[in-house]
């Protein structure tokens, strides 16, 4: 099973238990221990995603009371539908942020991708799926170019992607130049990513099937992990905790399925977004590639000395970011059924970065999860849609968005500070 050879000598090692330190405060068995640990963590400020989730609930509650239509099924499904574009950009940014770098070009690349796709499929009549594939490849190529200039030539990533921010926007304007906006047909990939395509054609069963699959998968993978750890005699997660986590996933996913079914069903683009999240989470947490991304984000020199090819990791991460930027561009274009000159809106960039950060990915590298893209974009899109619902003046909208962003992260930061004062974390 393992291909490793250690140079440790073959005298029987002392019992593994010896290594467990008496100073480690171990959680007691059962739900009670879970609760005391939760309280300890709360006091120590290790809250994980809790503050963002609470923030989200507060935001929903406020808009639910203020605007009469916020908590309707149609509106919630609009939030879940529109968040997918920015959310996809944010996934790519999570990779980049984990490296401790930034990609300022995602907005421009997404606009460029939409333009390329439109020109290929509409103006040049290329098959719509082929055009989508070519577009995504272009995104990867652009990202790799950024990564290459950064990793091999050593230009700070900030500057490379700032140049990309300007340059790709220019290229997009030039491509669209003669025609301006290009309308996209509601077929093929555009139909799939657009607002009229639902999982299993919008059949009520679709949503529930997805919820069941999610719940079962979570339960099984955790139980399997527990079994293996128990067999290897290392610390494992108690069954009570697994039950709790599974229950949480079940509640959230069935609730979401129910609400979406009240509207028109689960949009396919949302299914795609969730699948991407799961795949990326797997890549980052369960593969040695993901481990290397974290390592480079934590300490470049240490990673290099461990034999990791830092340039390769950097280039690949920017390629991933380019891919998600292009895909996000297609999604946004599908949502408005056209590629237009405003496609590379810098606001999209800002919102995508904000999503990743609000969701809990550190700007300083080495800490974060892909799920932060989901949490963060939910917050952002909820605010956006909520304010649209209220029909406030734009100036007030800006101020509120700023204030809410701030409030959402102040809670998070306060909790981190408590955490810091009780450790180096």
């Amino acid at each position, binding site marked *: *099973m393992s*291909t490793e050879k250690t*140079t440790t000598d073959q005298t029987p090692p002392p019992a593994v238990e010896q290594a467990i330190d008496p100073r480690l405060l171990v959680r007691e068995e059962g739900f009670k221990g879970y609760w005391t640990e939760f309280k300890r963590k709360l006091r120590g400020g290790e809250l994980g995603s809790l503050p963002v989730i609470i923030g989200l609930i507060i935001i929903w509650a406020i808009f639910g009371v203020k605007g009469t239509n916020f908590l309707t099924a149609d509106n919630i499904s609009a939030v879940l539908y529109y968040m997918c574009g920015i959310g996809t950009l944010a996934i790519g940014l999570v990779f980049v942020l984990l490296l401790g770098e930034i990609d300022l070009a995602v907005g421009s690349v997404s606009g460029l991708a939409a333009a390329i796709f439109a020109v290929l499929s509409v103006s040049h009549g290329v098959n719509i799926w082929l055009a989508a594939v070519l577009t995504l490849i272009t995104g990867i190529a652009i990202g790799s170019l950024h990564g290459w200039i950064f990793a091999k030539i050593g230009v700070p990533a900030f500057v490379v992607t700032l140049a990309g921010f300007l340059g790709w926007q220019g290229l997009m304007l030039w491509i669209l130049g003669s025609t301006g906006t290009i309308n996209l047909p509601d077929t093929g990939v555009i139909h799939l990513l657009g607002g009229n395509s639902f999982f299993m054609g919008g059949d009520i069963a679709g949503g529930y099937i997805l919820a069941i699959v999610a719940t079962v998968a979570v339960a099984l993978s955790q139980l399997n992990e527990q079994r293996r750890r128990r067999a290897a005699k290392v610390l494992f997660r108690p069954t009570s905790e697994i039950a709790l986590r599974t229950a949480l996933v079940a509640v959230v996913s069935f609730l979401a399925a129910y609400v979406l079914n009240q509207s028109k069903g689960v949009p396919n683009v949302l299914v795609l977004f969730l699948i991407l999240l799961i795949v990326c989470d797997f890549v980052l947490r369960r593969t*040695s590639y993901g481990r290397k991304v974290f*390592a480079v984000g*934590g*300490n470049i020199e240490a990673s290099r000395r461990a*034999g990791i090819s830092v340039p390769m990791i950097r280039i690949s991460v920017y390629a991933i970011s380019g891919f998600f930027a292009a895909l996000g561009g297609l999604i946004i274009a599908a949502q408005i059924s056209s590629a237009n000159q405003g496609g590379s809106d810098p606001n999209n960039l800002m919102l995508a970065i904000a999503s990743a950060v609000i969701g809990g990915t550190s700007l300083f590298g080495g800490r974060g999860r892909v799920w932060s893209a989901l949490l963060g974009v939910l917050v952002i899109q909820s605010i956006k849609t909520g304010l649209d619902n209220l029909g406030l003046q734009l100036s007030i909208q800006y101020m509120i968005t700023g204030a809410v962003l701030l409030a959402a992260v102040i809670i998070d930061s306060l909790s981190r500070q408590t955490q810091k004062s009780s450790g180096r974390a």
Partner: protein
Amino acid sequence: MVHVTSAPVLALRGVSKRFGAVQALTDVDLEVHAGEVVALVGDNGAGKSTLVKTIAGVHPIDEGVIEWEGKPVSIQKPHDAQNLGVATVYQDLALCDNLDVVNNLYLGRELKSLGTLDEVSMEKKALELLSTLSIRIPSVRIPVASLSGGQRQVVAIARSLIGDPKIVILDEPTAALGVEQTAQVLDLVERLRERGLGVILISHNMADVRAVADQVAVLRLGKNNGTFPVQETTQETIIAAITGATDNAVTRRQARTAEAAQ
């Protein structure tokens, strides 16, 4: 003390290295045979760590030749050195603070099953490895940022034992270690020699050096200042080679304390 007369596993010939305006190494020679422990000693800033880093590929040499098993090789990056079979414990440790102990130990050579990381096996082996070095770490799942200096050092040492090296380089491995852990590391060095590996050991502690080394190579101000077989050399000779004088703070201090004791 198995002495081998064949070609050295690793040999440096006339190696020089400059940093900006500082000439850190000038024309340095060094040989390490299989099953031999070479102690590299010298004053602070003598260039020991720089020499080790050139071997490990952290920074390439400016001039000179590195020979591996008799053939000249080019070591441009750490990966090259690792492929040859050089495992290194750096003085500045070089761990990823955000990763936990297990991940640091296996960084770059993770165990896998079916393409995905085999966290369970790694965790199990890590626990075993650390207990042979008799270190207590509260949990192997906490980030190394929160470890004590000695705990970090042991993690770095354990790291070098994963894989299958031919030469192990230890840059002041016991600097931060307690008496018990130091003894374990010295035991470990002896076990490595018995298994026929070459070891380069950097240390400022003459007692440790004399306890395990076969040869002592002295660096002074970036130049070779003699190589001595441990058996036939007195501590005073080595110290004189290190400090460049027989009258130094060490001898003065000894004289003073001897006087006071009378």
